[in-house]
């Protein structure tokens, strides 16, 4: 990551105004969004949207033709181009041919994408943004920090300073008064403008209509007052059927701002009369700018299902810390990273793709059903393919790829780490590594890894067998978790095998775009885990479980390697996470937890991969309750803890505040104990609590359950 990029992050996370406004908004958004969707089957709705937008993305040419035919029949002029430069030239030509001096605009990300304002202004045409947020940032000479709320990063004091300069009068920071000033200032501009430029939220092929939504009412004025209206529409806004407008409008305002509907919706089909009786000169520009290339890409075509609601920004734990400017000048957040990689260039996404911690919060809320984290991983993969890995990473993966060397180094580290370890933690690391322990203690490498301890466990001979996939953290940092797992499964009538040749699950490599390394890890693990005939392959690490259950397969698929896919599928079918397996054993009466005990309050932290990828969240809570704990929910229980594997090492400046927030939410419950199902989360949260000094125990569910087994 470049220094400049790192500096922009540091600046953002230390901007209290920004993090305050975004933090407050993200909290309110979740509550309000849920309320707006009350009584609506969101999964059903987004299934329909994904289908209709997916269809449109697969038929862009056909729908563009149909749209053009119908819009022109209605009297509009349609201009189609792949090239942003042609868009700018076309608009300028219409302006010059008609002697246009001033242009008013309603919000349009597509015009931002092609930097239209600067271009027109250079040609001597005055361009006025009319969306309040856009106007504010135009006055400030800035770029939008959020796709829906462009000026969310600014305080009312900053806005009042800007407006005061504009009206030559010292204004207070009273928000209603500032809004009134904007109304009064912009009204004459509206009335005098020669041309209106809008975007388009939807373009309907069947009727040649464009749909515009605003809350402020500016798009109504932009499309009504000037005699010329130009709508710039990216072809991904096309849909086939007019009736489907209602489907998108059901989701877009709810997901964008938690409204049932925006104040104004206009469905415009061809020109309408001006107030002097003449007919409006209406132009619709269908802009491609790499969208059809995107549609032809088997991985990225789904990104065209985006309806630009920005809900992926609103729920992103990273976005609420850093805001939009860190992401660049136009599209921001998760989807913005993907759009930037395409509409701008892949290289531009090099730094920003690293911001994604892969927590999957966005996949839960995306009304277009886009797997944004997966697409960001694909960007990583392609970047690595294009440019290769940084040298340091190359060295690390060369080691990870050689199990014996890797494990040998981990063993060596248990001794080498001693000078810095105190008890169970590494508290400080020397020199540049010190950042890694900033706000968090790291676990000391266990003196005796699980693979050695396993040999000493005396298990009964049982008919049913499970292979335990430990993963690096349990094997080398938390072997006691593995011992607890063996104890529980034995009690449930399952004998545990530990295939010695198992190695790293490949997640670290995969999450850094090194798919070849991940694939090689996958092959080693498939061989090791399928060697013995077992009913289950069980893991107590959700990230590892996801790797075994899905990512081995998708990694092979991404690389076009088919040889191991059948084996990977067999492995996936056997793979199960600890809580799900224990729940099953309890339900079948094979395992009993001690009944009727009162163990007091506990709170539970949902790990990203367990809750959102594997959809497991009730099981551990119910097990803990059965064991006698009183589960008290923390605020944002399923928000990422900031670990994200190597993320916390690459971007400690982001990881640390996310952890602090998690710690606060844990402490606020008053519970003396917090449970979770992921050793990575334990490492992050236990390390944070250690530095914080709070008297709270951080435990893996497996340990707590093992203590409460009926003898």
């Amino acid at each position, binding site marked *: 990551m470049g220094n400049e990029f790192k500096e922009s992050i540091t600046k953002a996370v230390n901007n209290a105004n920004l993090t305050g406004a975004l933090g407050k908004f993200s909290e309110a958004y979740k509550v309000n969004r849920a309320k707006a969707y009350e009584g609506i089957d969101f999964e059903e709705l987004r299934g329909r949207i994904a289908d209709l937008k997916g269809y449109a993305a697969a038929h862009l040419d056909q729908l563009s033709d149909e749209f053009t035919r119908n819009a022109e029949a*209605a009297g509009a002029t349609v201009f189609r181009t792949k090239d942003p430069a042609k868009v700018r030239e076309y608009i300028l030509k219409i302006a010059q041919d008609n002697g246009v001096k001033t242009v008013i605009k309603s919000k349009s990300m597509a015009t931002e994408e092609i930097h239209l304002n600067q271009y027109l202004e250079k040609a001597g045409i005055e361009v006025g943004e009319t969306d309040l947020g856009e106007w*504010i940032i135009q006055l400030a000479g800035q770029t939008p920090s959020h796709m829906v709320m462009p000026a969310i990063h600014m305080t009312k004091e900053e806005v009042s300073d800007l407006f005061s300069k504009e009206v030559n009068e010292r204004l207070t920071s009273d928000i209603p008064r500032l809004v009134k000033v904007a109304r009064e200032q912009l009204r004459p501009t509206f009335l005098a403008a020669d041309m209106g430029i809008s975007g388009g939220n939807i373009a309907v092929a069947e009727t040649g209509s464009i749909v515009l939504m605003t809350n402020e009412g500016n798009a109504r004025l932009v499309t009504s007052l000037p005699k010329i209206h130009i709508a710039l529409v990216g072809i991904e806004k096309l849909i086939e059927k007019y009736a489907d407008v209602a489907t998108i409008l059901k989701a877009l305002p709810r997901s964008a701002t938690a409204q049932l509907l925006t104040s104004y919706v206009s469905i415009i089909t061809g020109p309408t009369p001006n107030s002097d009786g003449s007919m409006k000169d209406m132009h619709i520009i269908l802009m491609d700018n790499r969208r059809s290339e995107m549609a032809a890409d088997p991985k990225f075509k789904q990104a065209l299902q985006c309806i630009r609601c920005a809900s992926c920004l609103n729920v992103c734990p990273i976005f609420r810390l850093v805001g939009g400017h860190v992401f660049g000048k136009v599209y921001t957040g998760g989807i913005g990273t993907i759009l930037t990689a395409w509409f701008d260039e892949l290289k531009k996404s090099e730094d920003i793709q690293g911001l994604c911690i892969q927590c999957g919060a966005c996949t839960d809320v995306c009304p277009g059903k886009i797997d944004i984290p997966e697409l960001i991983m694909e960007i990583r993969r392609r970047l690595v393919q294009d440019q290769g890995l940084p040298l340091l990473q190359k060295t690390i993966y060369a080691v990870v790829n050689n199990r014996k060397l890797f494990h040998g180094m981990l063993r060596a580290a248990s001794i080498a780490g001693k000078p810095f370890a105190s008890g169970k933690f590494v508290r400080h690391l020397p020199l540049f590594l010190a950042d890694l322990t900033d706000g968090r203690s790291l676990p000391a490498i266990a003196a005796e890894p699980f693979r050695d301890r396993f040999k000493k466990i005396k298990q009964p001979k049982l008919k049913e067998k499970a292979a335990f996939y430990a993963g690096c953290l349990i094997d080398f940092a938390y072997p006691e978790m593995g011992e607890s797992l063996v104890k529980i499964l034995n009690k449930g009538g399952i004998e545990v095998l530990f295939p010695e040749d198992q190695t790293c699950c490949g997640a670290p490599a995969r999450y850094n775009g090194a798919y070849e390394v991940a694939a090689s890890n996958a092959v080693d693990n498939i061989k090791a885990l399928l060697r013995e005939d077992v009913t289950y392959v069980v893991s107590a690490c959700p990230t590892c479980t996801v790797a075994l259950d899905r990512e081995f397969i998708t990694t092979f698929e991404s690389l076009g390697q088919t040889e191991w896919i059948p084996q990977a599928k067999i492995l996936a079918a056997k793979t199960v996470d600890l809580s799900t397996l224990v729940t099953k054993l309890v339900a079948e009466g094979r395992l009993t937890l001690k009944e009727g005990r009162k163990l007091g309050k506990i709170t539970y932290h949902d790990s990203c991969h367990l809750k959102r990828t594997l959809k497991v969240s009730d099981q551990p809570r119910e097990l803990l309750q059965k064991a006698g704990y009183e589960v008290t929910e923390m605020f944002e229980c399923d928000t990422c803890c900031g670990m994200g594997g190597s993320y916390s090492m690459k971007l400690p400046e982001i990881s640390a505040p996310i952890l602090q927030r998690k710690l606060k939410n844990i402490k606020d419950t008053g519970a003396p104990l917090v449970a979770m199902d992921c050793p990575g989360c334990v490492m992050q949260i236990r390390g944070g609590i250690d530095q914080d000094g709070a008297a709270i125990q951080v435990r893996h569910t497996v340990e707590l359950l093992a203590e409460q087994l009926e003898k």
Partner: protein
Amino acid sequence: MLYEQFKARAEGVSAEVFKFATKAEALEHLIVFLRTEGLADTPQATALWAECSFLDGIDRDAVAVNAGLKFGVTRELAAHARFGISQMEWALADTGSLAQNSTAIEQRLVSSLSTIHIALVPTSGILPDMPTLLAKVHPGDCAYLAMITGPSRTADIERVLTIGVHGPERLVIIFVNELSGPPLPTSPRLGEEKTPSPSGGGLGRGKNGNDMGGNK
């Protein structure tokens, strides 16, 4: 039932909702409202009433004795009007929205430039939701379908909800039971008639525009 749902939703977004059995009662309420809110024949105090079927059979001269209340929408009058009065043909119960064929620019001028928009709505025009509306109103018959949900709003400064940016800061909705709903479109479909309307009329795409408000 639909009305109750509409009212709750519309009030939830700060609209003000009334209902009257007759046009006479609605008119009386409207005039009292205008006077109370400072109607006068001075800039930023006038009211501008766009053509609509509500006005059929109403003695406009008698109504216009209220100084400042005007008919005959122009851009200049609209720019200076405090009150804009128009008839919205439909209401959507599940979102508290109003909808109108706004092809005629006069309809948009009074509802977008005014500070207070007063919408007259036939009670029979309440529909359950947007899919029902879109099934009824085809773009071939309606070049500019406008939906309005509450007053103009923004939250662009510090996420504080503020009412009245570029559009009206108040939306007053008056349902009238005896007002008949919009006729089903019978005029030429899209593409068959594209002659721009003569000046002054400004009523939509040729003949279609004249259907604005219906009953002509």
